């Protein structure tokens, strides 16, 4: 008798299972087709660091004070800057990040007194080997500024720069590379 009831209840449970899967079959797809579609990455996602810039002038906030490089426990930041003619502060001219050493500890971002660096939300970093060993963040800053329709600040030619229009209301430069 036990066998009979077990057979019946087992068969019914199989039907329940089939019912569940057929419901899933006719439900919409929930996966993201990665190369064609991408998810929006959360703001607080910690990617590699990148240079922030002044929204109005397009100038990087960085004054090449080297505090971030000193704060970095892995020594992965090397930067340099000059004092452009006619300016009061120094400006970054080269900012190299060795991302293979970086542990994304965020100490550089916390140490920066000028709010000049932030974490990017770049996550799809697959590339040829060792291209992460030397990330040129000044180049990245120039590309990002160009993408939002502004002229990147050139510290070597300060006379040409003040042509930046303060009226431009470009969206926040959070675009993915």
């Amino acid at each position, binding site marked *: 008798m036990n066998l009979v009831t077990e057979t019946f209840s087992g068969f019914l449970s199989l039907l329940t*299972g089939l019912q569940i899967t057929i419901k*899933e079959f006719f439900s919409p797809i929930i996966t993201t087709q990665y190369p064609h579609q991408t998810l929006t990455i959360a703001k607080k996602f910690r990617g590699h660091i990148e240079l922030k810039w002044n929204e109005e002038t397009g100038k990087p906030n960085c004054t090449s004070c080297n505090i971030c490089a000193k704060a970095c426990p892995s020594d992965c930041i090397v930067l340099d800057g000059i004092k452009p003619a006619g300016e009061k502060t120094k400006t970054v001219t080269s900012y190299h990040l060795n991302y293979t050493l970086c542990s994304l500890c965020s100490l550089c971002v916390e140490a920066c007194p000028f709010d000049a660096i932030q974490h990017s939300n770049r996550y799809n970093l697959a590339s040829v080997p060792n291209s992460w060993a030397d990330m040129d963040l000044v180049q990245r800053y120039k590309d990002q500024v160009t993408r939002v329709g502004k002229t990147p600040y050139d510290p070597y030619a300060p006379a040409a720069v003040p042509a930046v229009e303060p009226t431009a209301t470009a969206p926040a430069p959070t675009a993915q590379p």
Partner: protein
Amino acid sequence: MIESIFKFLTTEPYWTLVRSLLYLGGICGFVAANAAYLVWVERKGAGRFQRRPGPTESGWAGLLQPPADGIKLLAKQLMAPPGSDKILFWAAPLMVIAPPLVCLAAIPFGDNVLARDLNIGLLMVFSFGSINVMALMLGGWASRNKYAIISAARVVSQNVAYEIPMLLVVITIIMVTGTMNLQEIILQQAGGFWNWNILRGIWDFSGGGWGHIGGNLLAPVTFLIFYICMLAETNRAPFDMAEAESELVAGAFTEYGGMGFGVFFMAEYANIVVGCALATILFLGGWQSGLGSGFGTLLTSWGVIGTVIGVGFFFAKMYFLIFSVVWIRWTFPRTQFYGLLNLSWKILIPISLLTLLLTSVTLKLPRLF
């Protein structure tokens, strides 16, 4: 010119040859197309059951995936492992793909679409269908691989266990229909869907009027047993103990690469096609529409178009069963081996013996109504 060639080919001494060649090519093409595109159906189905899209990249909706896979498999070197029995090793893939091809010769797809109208078609299909087991066993044995041998042993015990209830329920069908001719079995199920064997067994309306008690009171259960045994015979999940990739690498196919493996893969789907076609014929009325006898006679009066519609009904039922096979695969986990044998020996065989007994009693009882 063309007309005279057509006339020459369709006159009798040559027509037999031409017809055989046409059916040969047609069946080979049908099996190849099904084996290729059922893999696509399987992968799409697997995707949808897990709420992902399945293959999408090659061709529209991934439709070029099967040819791509086929070309990849064909481009690979065929290698037999050292120390294996080469003859048996290469005989196994041939033996596994040939029986479904032969079986399809006796399957009536429509009222005129039938390669060979054998009066023992059912027997032929089952006897050739059993060779599948033998081929898997040989492949496993000849591979000189411990996983393959375990798989071969499993295949044999599993298929012995499931052949018995399958043949028992088929005997009940033969007792009710009184024939082994598949076309004859389909013709008996003409009329509405209540005349299909799955329902006719309970209450038979075919005599007209209120009808009378059918031959096989447990006909739906019989269908279920046949279906479960078909899954087990074709080594499909949840009964894929022979392949069991989580335990046995790939079971009997472990040492096969390239198209050697591809042939086993194709044979699995060809066997599913044969099994589902047989289930359709035996229980679901084959190419009969099931929409009542008026519609049936209308179809036969339409000639070729009627035949095509009949084939369409056959394929609709067959592919629904094939879809349910995929559905079951992506619903249930693999059973354990003792569970598999317990199901057969403790549940399916007693029930099928019971249906056999019940059928013979009801057939011999005087008609009460």
